[in-house]
């Protein structure tokens, strides 16, 4: 009787362990992820002056553009230009300033430094996957800036346009930011990989940021471009970085357009991610580190 009970007890325990073990492993993994994120967060917290200066210069840049657009609207004597009124243009540039923090990706710089200084060798053998480390580091770096700069600027922007955001719009906005970030991360990861072959990748990242700035809507709302140009731009994932999330928040594009833009971005992300993954697996073999 006892032996049977003991046996069933042991079997039950084994069963429970079988369930718990993967959960514990996952939990341990989460702890590791949290540690990487926390380290990155602590490092960003050191640069308080940077945070303050970043806030000042971002708001100042948005204010400059507000001055310029006020003059442009006044000179034209129009209430709206290509469907955008002046308060929306004000809000747009404030939201661009905020968005540049939500989508900030310094992945390529981390990769370049890791490759040039040889620290990639130790990063690759850490228990947390290298790509996950990059994602967590990137998020850790962004977190403080989002909390202390991004959200306040975002609120200013919304107040300027007198826009109230519904929960659905907020959710859509978050989803778009996530998609935009995934696209940007993959792009910057690709550029970061170029550090294996180039001595410096600043030039490449500069070109990428410039193109995203122009085609993503950071320099001007995409409504202002000629419709033929807009049609081409909307076939790319670029609008998802700035224009689509901002326009969703301001309510200047329909849910249908936002959904279409998300689908287009996803259609780009999937093959792009597969390509980058394939290239990364090949490129890792070419990584040599100083001293090893």
């Amino acid at each position, binding site marked *: 009787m006892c032996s049977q009970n003991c046996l069933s007890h042991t079997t039950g325990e084994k069963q429970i362990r079988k369930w718990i073990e993967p959960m514990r492993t996952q939990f341990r993994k989460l702890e590791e992820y949290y540690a990487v994120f926390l380290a990155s967060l602590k490092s960003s917290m050191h*640069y308080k002056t940077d945070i303050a200066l970043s806030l000042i210069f971002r708001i100042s840049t948005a204010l400059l553009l507000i001055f310029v657009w006020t003059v442009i609207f006044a000179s*034209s004597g129009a209430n709206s230009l290509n469907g955008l009124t002046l308060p929306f243009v004000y809000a747009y540039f404030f939201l661009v300033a905020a968005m540049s923090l939500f989508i900030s990706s310094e992945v390529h710089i981390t990769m370049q430094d890791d490759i040039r200084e040889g620290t990639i060798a130790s990063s690759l053998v850490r228990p947390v996957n290298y790509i996950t480390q990059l994602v967590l580091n990137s998020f850790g770096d962004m977190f403080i800036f989002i909390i202390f700069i991004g959200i306040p600027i975002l609120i200013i922007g919304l107040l300027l346009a007198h826009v109230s955001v519904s929960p659905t719009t907020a959710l859509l906005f978050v989803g778009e930011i996530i998609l935009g970030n995934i696209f940007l991360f993959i792009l910057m990861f690709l550029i970061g990989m170029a550090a294996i072959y180039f001595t410096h990748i600043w030039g490449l990242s500069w070109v990428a940021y410039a193109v995203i700035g122009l085609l993503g809507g950071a320099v001007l709302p995409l409504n202002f471009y000629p419709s033929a140009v807009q049609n081409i731009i909307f076939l790319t994932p670029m609008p998802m970085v700035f224009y689509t999330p901002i326009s969703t928040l301001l309510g200047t594009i329909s849910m249908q357009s936002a959904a279409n833009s998300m689908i287009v971005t996803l259609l780009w992300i999937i093959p792009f991610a597969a390509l980058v993954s394939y290239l990364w697996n090949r490129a890792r073999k070419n990584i040599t580190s100083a001293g090893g």
Partner: protein
Amino acid sequence: MFDQIKENIMYLLISQKYKWLSFLTYRLQAFVWIVASSFNVIYPLVTITVIYSISSGIAGWSYYQLIFLAATASAAMGMAWYFADASNIIDGLLYGSADKIFTRPYGLLTLLMVEYGDVIAAPTIIGAIALMAFAALHLQLSAQLLLYYLVLLSLGTIAYAMFLLMLTALAYKYFRRGTFIWRMVNFIGEASNYPISAYGFVVAGLFSTVIPIGFAYYYPSVLLFGGFNATLFYGSAVFCIAISVACYKAFYLLMRSYTSAKG
């Protein structure tokens, strides 16, 4: 003294040759840099073109005048960047690469220009000049005014470059980080795409005094398009010289606090 100046100029010129050779060694990388640097000119061109296609633009400025103004700003900022990249200088001071150059028998300014000037600014300058030429074809410019413009542009660019140098030494002494400088340069770059008169009294005043960028692009352009104004020309010239000398002196004074990064 003239011999010393001659030696410094010769050193600067010879170093340019080697900098270019070194830059062009990695051809693909050089090409990427050229494309990247050209965006400093493409940006204002696209922005201004779009603005004028949907509106009547900025009052008092025609499309080509505004293109010329933005190109002037790109050229001035490109020149300052070509001869002394503030971010490079501060990195050199902080991480020790400046130690080895300060022992060379040339003036501090020459050494900084040789070591920390950035040839990748050249495409910006060339692009800006091309854009100016394109705009000039559609503007009837007087040769005499062009000469005054060039004098003011040169003086303004020197004043702006000296201001950046002074700011670099200031950032080195008090912040020990260069991010402040590049954030400011980015901000100035964004601002200089448009006339400072668009920014209202406070910002226009700031760009005409504390941050002398107005003298590197706005006032020369006003002189060129608005006709000769003796007060504007001589006043700006005197102010540029005064600010250049003051920033140069302040830079030397601040650099006295330089200690080797290696101990």
